[in-house]
């Protein structure tokens, strides 16, 4: 018990309750340690590279056994960190020997079973953001497009979760999806779905996404057609099984490819901010508020949303399911003219417009009714809500009209309760 302050029974109980509650939380410790280690190593690497670059313009630092080569001109001594450098090509930074597009194609072919290759395309990512290799592979049963692409992501960030979480089935129809943690702390998502979520053409799209604890992101994708879109289906399924996809995506060579990518100058530095979430209303609070504003006769069947700004509920008024989605956004003032050109302005300056049109995903008979509002002020605070006459956007209409009228949608969007999120 802490000393030098009188304490009472409540403090004892609080201590016990904190212990009890804290002890319930159990993390994937290996992943935490790997993630921490990766952040530390990168911070140290940046620091070293910065010091060397500033002093002499030469950076020869061994990392993971690879050679770092100096590139470009030396920077001034005021530049202390590679991450803060604002040039597109890393000037004073230490860069691993980059892979060329041909290197990437060669490595990809090595990992694929025997077959014929055509329509090869690739970029090493030195002059363009991101690296990729793409080809058409034919194992004798029909040509199929296969691609691999690379990026660097912030470990532990929202982006990683978005890459490795299976999509919400309310929005995307797919056959199978799983996420697992590999022994080295990497996250792996294996996905089997369709190129067009509404399946207007049944092109299958299968993919594997790997995000390592160090933030290396590798995606391998394949189709049962020689092109992603606008090409006939040539075979029942894409050529690689899920197990083969996993094998290709986890190949060690790809991690070196990601390490060789130049730093994206637009990205904030890794060490500066553990917080990579954009500021914004929490998705849970959005859903909670939305649910609280619905007419009482509507039963909420499911609810969900994103980490920030977006939420949805599926409601049922006993005439069928109806999806209601909402976005609560900041900083939208710059597009106000486009959004509310045809709308009205309320006495307090709030801009409002409503729309009634077809759904966005092309499912049969789906309509989407929308009320779009922006509060006055420099923060560009927008609340936009839409209701559908179906429980999922990619499913055909289940009823004539959404469960809420445009007037009701408008009323919800204009509720002062949203102002708490400003």
């Amino acid at each position, binding site marked *: 018990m802490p000393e030098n302050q009188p304490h009472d029974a409540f403090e004892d*109980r609080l201590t016990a309750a904190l212990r009890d509650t804290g002890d319930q939380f159990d993390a994937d410790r290996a992943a*935490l340690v790997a*993630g*921490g280690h990766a952040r530390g190593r990168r911070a140290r690497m940046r620091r070293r590279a910065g010091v060397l670059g500033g002093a002499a313009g030469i950076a020869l630092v061994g990392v993971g056994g690879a050679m770092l080569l100096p590139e470009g001109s030396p920077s001034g001594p005021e530049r202390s960190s590679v991450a803060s450098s604002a040039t597109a090509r890393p000037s004073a930074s230490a860069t691993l020997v980059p892979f060329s597009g041909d290197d990437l194609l060669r490595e990809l072919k090595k990992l694929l079973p025997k077959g014929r290759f055509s329509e090869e395309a690739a970029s090493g990512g030195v002059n363009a953001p991101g690296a990729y290799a793409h080809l058409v592979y034919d194992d004798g049963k029909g040509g199929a497009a296969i691609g691999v692409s690379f990026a660097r992501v912030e470990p532990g960030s929202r982006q990683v979760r978005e890459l490795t979480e299976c999509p919400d089935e309310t929005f995307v129809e797919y056959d199978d999806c799983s996420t697992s943690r590999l022994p080295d702390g990497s996250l792996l998502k294996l996905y089997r779905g369709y190129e067009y979520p509404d399946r207007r053409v049944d092109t299958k799209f299968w993919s594997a996404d790997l995000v390592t604890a160090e933030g290396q992101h590798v995606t391998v994708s394949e189709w049962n057609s020689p092109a992603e879109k606008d090409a006939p289906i040539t075979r029942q399924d894409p050529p690689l099984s899920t197990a083969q996809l996993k094998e290709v995506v986890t190949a060690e060579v790809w991690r070196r490819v990601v390490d060789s990518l130049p730093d994206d100058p637009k990205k904030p530095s890794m*060490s500066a901010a553990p917080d990579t979430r954009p500021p914004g209303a929490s998705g849970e609070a959005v859903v909670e508020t939305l649910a609280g504003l619905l007419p009482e006769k509507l039963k909420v069947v499911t609810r969900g949303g994103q980490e920030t700004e977006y939420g949805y509920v599926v409601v049922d008024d006993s005439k069928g399911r109806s999806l209601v989605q909402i976005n609560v956004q900041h900083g939208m003032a710059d597009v106000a003219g486009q959004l509310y050109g045809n709308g009205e302005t309320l006495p307090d300056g709030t801009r409002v417009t409503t729309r009634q049109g077809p759904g966005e995903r092309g499912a049969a008979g789906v309509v989407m009714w929308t009320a779009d509002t922006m509060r006055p002020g420099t923060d560009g605070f927008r609340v936009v809500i839409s209701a559908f006459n179906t429980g999922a956007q990619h499913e055909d209409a289940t009823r004539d009209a959404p469960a809420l009228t445009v007037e009701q949608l408008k009323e919800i969007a204009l509720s002062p309760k949203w102002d708490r999120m400003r």
Partner: protein
Amino acid sequence: MRQRRADEYAEFAAARAGHLYRSACLLTAGDTHLAEDLVQETLGRLYVRWGRMTRVGNPAGYAQTVLTRAFLAHQRRRSSGERATDVFPDLPGAADGDASLRLTLLAALARLPAKDRAVIVLRYWEDRSVEQTADVLNVSSAAVRTRCVRALGRLRELLGEDLSEYARP
């Protein structure tokens, strides 16, 4: 020599990650994603400073300080003022009766300003003295006392009755 230090770090990180994570979960009032982030950030910073730190002694205490400061820095970036979070925590095994009590506690912590929450976690979870808490937070002892009294009052209000189950002889 260098290898020995690397081994020491690895051993320390493996041994402390679980506790740091639990502290972080209390600081964030159950936001486990943010807690993971903060722990990784903390371990990353320790990695960079490991050589110096081992000479300072008590790396576990230092790690807690780094974690608390990372949390407060995060809260500052997130909002201009002190704002209570209102996120429903993800608590494993939320089905049994005790779980609802834990959720109640986390919900009450969530309603405290970040600095007050840090004071409560340091004093009653980490068992730090007022002076040690003041050091971590870079404020005076008097300020810690003030915050502590205020936070306890608020918690008593929010969960006075609920905590009676924790009455121990």
